[in-house]
């Protein structure tokens, strides 16, 4: 019997949304549900393990990868509001299990169904257009290294932003350059990290934007914290999903 299949995704919340940005989690759920996707949230989820991977603690990273596999293996699809976490699951887990082909197969399967939310909307739901935002403000987009080079997503978020904001969307100069966060780099070499952050904030100020959207809350945590240090607290840093839900529900939160 041919039944219309509802898509089902499991939300991977990510640490930053868990601790700092509940709005990003809520927006992700609402956006997916508005397109008829069934969303569940496995409560046993924790962290993808990226901080341990990138600081050379591969043993701990393995343990966390295995936990992630346990929690999400049976999901139809996994969607996270974070390019860096998705990059970790898709590209960084496999090398941790060299010489364990059965596990690698399972991780390969996992990788094939893990998406960033904007990516999911574009590549899987095939959403061609988003409705206009009810109260558009001048906004720009921080493309983030993991969005560009980890999951290979170029131009998609920018298109959605143009659709929602029209002429209020301004591209960011030197978008290809890292914002300076780099995980542990931000606290190991804070002066360099700070200078790179200043350059990025300088470009944001040049655009005249009051809102900065991205697909990586880790970058935005670093940039917004730096913005507040530099008296740029008026800048609003959001995940793209937060703007999307405002456009889809016709109201600003």
């Amino acid at each position, binding site marked *: 019997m041919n039944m219309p299949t509802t898509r089902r995704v499991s939300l991977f*919340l990510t640490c930053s*949304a*868990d*601790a*700092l*940005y*509940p*709005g*990003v*989690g*809520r927006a992700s*759920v609402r956006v997916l549900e508005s397109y008829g996707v069934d969303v569940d949230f496995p*409560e*046993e989820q*924790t*962290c993808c*393990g990226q*901080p341990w*991977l*990138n*600081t*050379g*603690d*591969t*043993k*701990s990273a393995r*343990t*966390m990868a295995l*936990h992630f596999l346990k929690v999400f293996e049976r999901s139809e699809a996994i969607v996270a509001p974070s390019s860096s976490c998705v990059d970790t699951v898709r590209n960084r887990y496999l*090398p941790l299990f060299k010489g364990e082909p059965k596990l690698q197969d399972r991780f390969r399967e996992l990788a094939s169904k893990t998406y960033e939310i904007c990516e999911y909307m574009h590549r899987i739901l095939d959403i061609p257009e988003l409705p206009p935002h009810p109260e558009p403000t001048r906004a720009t987009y921080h493309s983030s*290294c993991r969005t*560009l*080079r*980890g999951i290979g997503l170029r131009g998609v978020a920018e298109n959605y932003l143009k659709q929602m904001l029209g002429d209020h969307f301004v591209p960011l100069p030197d978008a*290809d350059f*890292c914002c*300076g*966060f*780099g*995980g542990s*780099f*931000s*606290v*190991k*070499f*804070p*002066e*360099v*990290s*700070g*200078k*790179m*952050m*200043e350059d990025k904030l300088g470009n944001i100020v040049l655009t005249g934007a009051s809102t900065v959207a991205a697909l990586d809350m880790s970058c935005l*945590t670093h940039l*917004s*914290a*730096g913005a*507040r*240090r530099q008296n740029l607290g008026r800048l609003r840093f959001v995940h793209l999903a937060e703007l999307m839900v405002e456009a889809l529900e016709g109201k600003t939160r």
Partner: protein
Amino acid sequence: MNPIAPNFRKASRDAVRNSQVIAAVRKTANLLSEMMALAVANTPDFEALRDYGRARKLEISGDLEKYAQSFAANAQAAGAVVHRARDAAEAARLAIKIAADNGAKTAVKGKSMTAEEVELNEALEAAGITVTETDLGEFIIQLAKEKPSHIMAPAIHRSRAQVAELFTDKLGTPPDLGVEALVAAARKDLREKFLTADMGITGGNFAIADTGSIVLVSNEGNIRMTTTLPRIHLAVVGIDKIIPEMADMPKFLALLARSACGQTISSYMSIVTGPRRTGEEEGPEQLHIILLDNGRSRIAKGPYREILHCLHCGACLSHCPVYRTVGGHAYQATYPGPMGSVISPLISGLEIYADLPNACTLCGRCAEVCPVCVPLPDYLRELRSDVKKPPFMMKLAAFGANTPSLYRLGMIVMRRMLKKGGMGLMAPALKEWTVCREPPKPQEGESFRDWWRTRSHCK
């Protein structure tokens, strides 16, 4: 050996305060990147070239000794004298002996990062041999008694005004000369030295195994001078520079020229196969080639083998956001930037260069532009696990993060503390965070998990 223990934190902190150096570095890095991008865009099969370059280099790094022997045999057949140097000290000893055996007291030198690696100038000077750098960038830093800060453009950190001041001081030129006049002054000063030097020293961009040839590229003409005028030519070449056949050379040249300077080919290319032959009117009487190992055969057998494929084009440096923010000297290593952060710890030891694999945000730009697809970010990440055992706090945090109930508790605690404005338990790490940032600010309202539980109950 570097007398100062490298400390990237301190060096980078000082570097970011020097806005003049950052401006100079970025100006040149931007230009080099733009030129490369243009050249690559005008080369329809560049991606295929990159794949070819990597594949061919894998053949070589898979059996360095075989290719080294083949090169040595063919070079010798053409009349060159080939010396194998296990390490930097041996290379320096060999160079001094070659000079001494031939009564060479003065030398002119083309740019060579390999010679920098073995600190050749210092060794020769200590043995009473005067070495004059002839590449303009190297000439400048030699006058300033500095080390190169970029593997392709050594004086990238100096502005024109600084160079003019340096020339006035050391060469007696009029103050505040423009670029053309500065170049003319260098030409004049070096011309005499070229004509009278006993020995010419170069590196080698490529060494061709099947013919025993050395390929040297330059834009200035100093390499041609250095390899034509003096009676002895000494080339110092790492065994990783060897490529199998002459037929491979045009493709590798295509990769190097575009990635280094955005060119199809440099102004000058010399393919040197042995010294002057009977009947020829110019060229050195003797050609000595020092084939340097210095850890390369060890690296070839390990997990970081592909770093030996590096063409020394400098593209990764010019594109690296960290290098562009601190310049080359902050790395306190012969080779700075992304490729330097991999090879410096491998050659000199992880204990010395423990910082460098961490001096990187893993942004991935270097891997995107590397002409031979060296997986630099992967290597930098892996080197981090080689450097030291993870700190106990990280292990503890991993345990907590991997236990769902502890993790959930941890999130709640963090959220509460940050709402209050403090950093609480994380204060030590976050002391560094607050060097340039305010503490992270949580969004208002209930946590996501609470929201989810409420709505699940309502359903």
